[in-house]
C-alpha cells in the first residue's frame, strides 16, 4: 500500500513537472518546448528529491483491522478487494463512456480549462491574449496547472489530441482513488482502506466530475495528498518527517496553482499545521519544521504570485467589492440563512444522500473517536475550508441563488475524498473487535 501512495504521487508529479516547467519556459523564452529542457530537470529534482528520503522511513504502525480475527480478516480483505476491483473496472468503463460523449469535456472545460490550454499551445508568445476583459466569462484569473499540463503534453506529442486532456483527467481521478485506499491502509489497516475506496467509487458523482475535465478532481487529489502525507509525517521523525512535510506543502502549493480555491486551501493548511504543531505536547522545536513547510511551498507559490501579480486580471468576486456593498452583504442575516441552508441541503443530497448513511452507520456501530494529531489536523483543515467557502459566498457580488446552485456540488467534490479520509481515520471500531487468546470478544478500551 505504500507503493500505491507512492505510485499515485509519482504519476501526478510526472504531469506537474512538465506542466510547471513548460509554463516557466513559455514565460522566459516565449515558446512551449517540444522536448525536455533544463527547467524539467530542475522541477523534477524539486518534486522527486523527497522520495529519496522515504527509503529511510519506517512503515507506520498498522492498526488491527476492524474485523478482528486473522482468518476473518483474510476472508473480508479478499471479498472487499474483489468488490473494489469490480468497482474500479466499472468506474473506468463509465469514465470512458462519458469521455466518448464529451471528448473536449463539459461546459467549463471548453469555456475555461481546455480553452486556456489552446491559447497556451496555439498562441505561444501571444498566449496571454485571453487575459482580456472581453473574455471575463472564461475566468482569466484562474491559475494554469491544468491548461499548462494539457498544452505541454500537446507540444511534446505534436498535436491537439483529445487523449491528452482525457488522459490527465483519468490520471487524477483514479490516482485519487489509489491515494485514498493506500493512505487509509497505511495508517489504519487494509480493510478500512478498501472500504474507503469503495465509498469513493460508490459515489459516482466523483467519476462524472473527473470525466468532465474540470479542475475540481485534480484539486481534490492535492487536498487529499496533503492530508495523507501530513498524517504520515506524524508517524515519522528526523529527515523522513522533514521530507514528508516538504512534499505535503508542495502538493498544497500545486493546489494553489490549480484553482483559486487552492489558495484558500494553502492558507488553511499553513494555519492549521502551525497551530496544531505549536500546541502539540512534547514537541521541543515546533517552529523548526516551518522551514520545510516554506521550502515545499516556494517553488510553485512563486509562480502563482508571478502570474497573479503580472498577468492575471482581478478575480471577479474580489475585484467587484465595494466597501458599502460588502458591508451590506456581511450584515444581511438572510444571506447567512440562505448559505447555511444550501450547505446543509448539499450535505444531505450529495451523492444521493450517502452522507446521511455515513452518519447512521456511526450511530448504529458506536465507534470510538480517535483523538489523534491527524484527526485534529484534518478536522481543523476541513472546518477552515468550509468557513472560507461560506465567507466567499457571503461577500460574493453575484446572484447568490445561482452562485450556490452552480458551484456547491463542485466544492463538495473537492472536499469529498479528504472527508472520507477523515471519516476512516477519526473513528475506530477496533475496540469492539479485539479477540482475546481464548477467542472471546472483549472491549479493549
Amino acid at each position, binding site marked *: 500500500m505504500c507503493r500505491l501512495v507512492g505510485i499515485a504521487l509519482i504519476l501526478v508529479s510526472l504531469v506537474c513537472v512538465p506542466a510547471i516547467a513548460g509554463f516557466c519556459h513559455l514565460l522566459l523564452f516565449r515558446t512551449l518546448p517540444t522536448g525536455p529542457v533544463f527547467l524539467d530537470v530542475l522541477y523534477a529534482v524539486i518534486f522527486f528529491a523527497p522520495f529519496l528520503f522515504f527509503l529511510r522511513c519506517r512503515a507506520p504502525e498498522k492498526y488491527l483491522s476492524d474485523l478482528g480475527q486473522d482468518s476473518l480478516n483474510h476472508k473480508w480483505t479478499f471479498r472487499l478487494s474483489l468488490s473494489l476491483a469490480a468497482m474500479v473496472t466499472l468506474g473506468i468503463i463509465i469514465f470512458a463512456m462519458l469521455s466518448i460523449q464529451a471528448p473536449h469535456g463539459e461546459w467549463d472545460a471548453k469555456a475555461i480549462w481546455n*480553452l486556456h490550454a*489552446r491559447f497556451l499551445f496555439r498562441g505561444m508568445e501571444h498566449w496571454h491574449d485571453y487575459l482580456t476583459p472581453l473574455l471575463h466569462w472564461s475566468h482569466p484569473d484562474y491559475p494554469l496547472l491544468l491548461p499548462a499540463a494539457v498544452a505541454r503534453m500537446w507540444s511534446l506529442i505534436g498535436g491537439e489530441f483529445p487523449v491528452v486532456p482525457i488522459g490527465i483527467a483519468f490520471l487524477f481521478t483514479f490516482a485519487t482513488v489509489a491515494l485514498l485506499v493506500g493512505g487509509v491502509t497505511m495508517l489504519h489497516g487494509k480493510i478500512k482502506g478498501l472500504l474507503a475506496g469503495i465509498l469513493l467509487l460508490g459515489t459516482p458523482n466523483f467519476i462524472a466530475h473527473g470525466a468532465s475535465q474540470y479542475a475540481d478532481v485534480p484539486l481534490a487529489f492535492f487536498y487529499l495528498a496533503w492530508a495523507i502525507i501530513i498524517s504520515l509525517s506524524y508517524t515519522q521523525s528526523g529527515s523522513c518527517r522533514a521530507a514528508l512535510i516538504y512534499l505535503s506543502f508542495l502538493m498544497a502549493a500545486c493546489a494553489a496553482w490549480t484553482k483559486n480555491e487552492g489558495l484558500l486551501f494553502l492558507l488553511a493548511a499553513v494555519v492549521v499545521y502551525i497551530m496544531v504543531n505549536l500546541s502539540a505536547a512534547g514537541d521541543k522545536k515546533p517552529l523548526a519544521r516551518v522551514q520545510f513547510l516554506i521550502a515545499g511551498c516556494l517553488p510553485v507559490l512563486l509562480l502563482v504570485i508571478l502570474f497573479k501579480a503580472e498577468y492575471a486580471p482581478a478575480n471577479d468576486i474580489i475585484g467587484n467589492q465595494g466597501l458599502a456593498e460588502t458591508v451590506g452583504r456581511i450584515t444581511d442575516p438572510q444571506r447567512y440563512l440562505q448559505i447555511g441552508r444550501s450547505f446543509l441541503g448539499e450535505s444531505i443530497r450529495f451523492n444521493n444522500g450517502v452522507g446521511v448513511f455515513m452518519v447512521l452507520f456511526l450511530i448504529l456501530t458506536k465507534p470510538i473517536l480517535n483523538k489523534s494529531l491527524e484527526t485534529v489536523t484534518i478536522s481543523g483543515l476541513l472546518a477552515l475550508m468550509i468557513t472560507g467557502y461560506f465567507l466567499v459566498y457571503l461577500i460574493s457580488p453575484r446572484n447568490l441563488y445561482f452562485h450556490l446552485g452552480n458551484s456547491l456540488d463542485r466544492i463538495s467534490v473537492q472536499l469529498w475524498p479528504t472527508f472520507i479520509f477523515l471519516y476512516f481515520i477519526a473513528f475506530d471500531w477496533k475496540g469492539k473487535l479485539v479477540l482475546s487468546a481464548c477467542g472471546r470478544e472483549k472491549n479493549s478500551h
Partner: protein
Amino acid sequence: MRRKRLVILTTLAVLMLWGNMLFSISIDPRIHADLSRLWSTLLKVNSPHGYDMRFAELREALPKRGTVGYLGTLANEQIFEDVGESGAYYQTQYALAPLVVDNSWSHELVVGNFGDIEAAIKKVETLAGIKRVHDFGNGLVLITREK
C-alpha cells in the same frame, strides 16, 4: 454480537454503495455511449464526432490572432441568458482560439454562428455597414463590415 452487527452493517453499506453506483449509471443518459468509438475519440484530432471540424474552414479564413466580433441567433445582450446561445458562443471561442471572439457586433470581422440559417440570413440582411458575407455552411458565416 457487536462484531456480528458491524459485519452485517458493513455488508449492507457496501451493497448500498453498489446500488448507488448502478442506479446513477442507469439514470445518466450520457453513460450509454458506443465504446467502439473510444479509439477514434482519443486519437483523432479532428474526429468525425469533433465539432472543431465544423469550424475548420472558417479558421483558415480568419487571421491567426487578434479580435473578431460575434453574432448569434439572439441579440448580443441576450446571449448569456440563453443556455443554447451561450453554449454556441463558447464553442465558437473554443474552436477559434487563440483568436479572441468578442460577444459584440463592433468589429471589422464578425463570426456568425446560427442554428437556423434562414433566420440568420434575414438577420444579417437587416444589418447596416456590411461589405461582404461568406457562408461556410453549417450555420457559420463570416461578415466583413466597412471600417
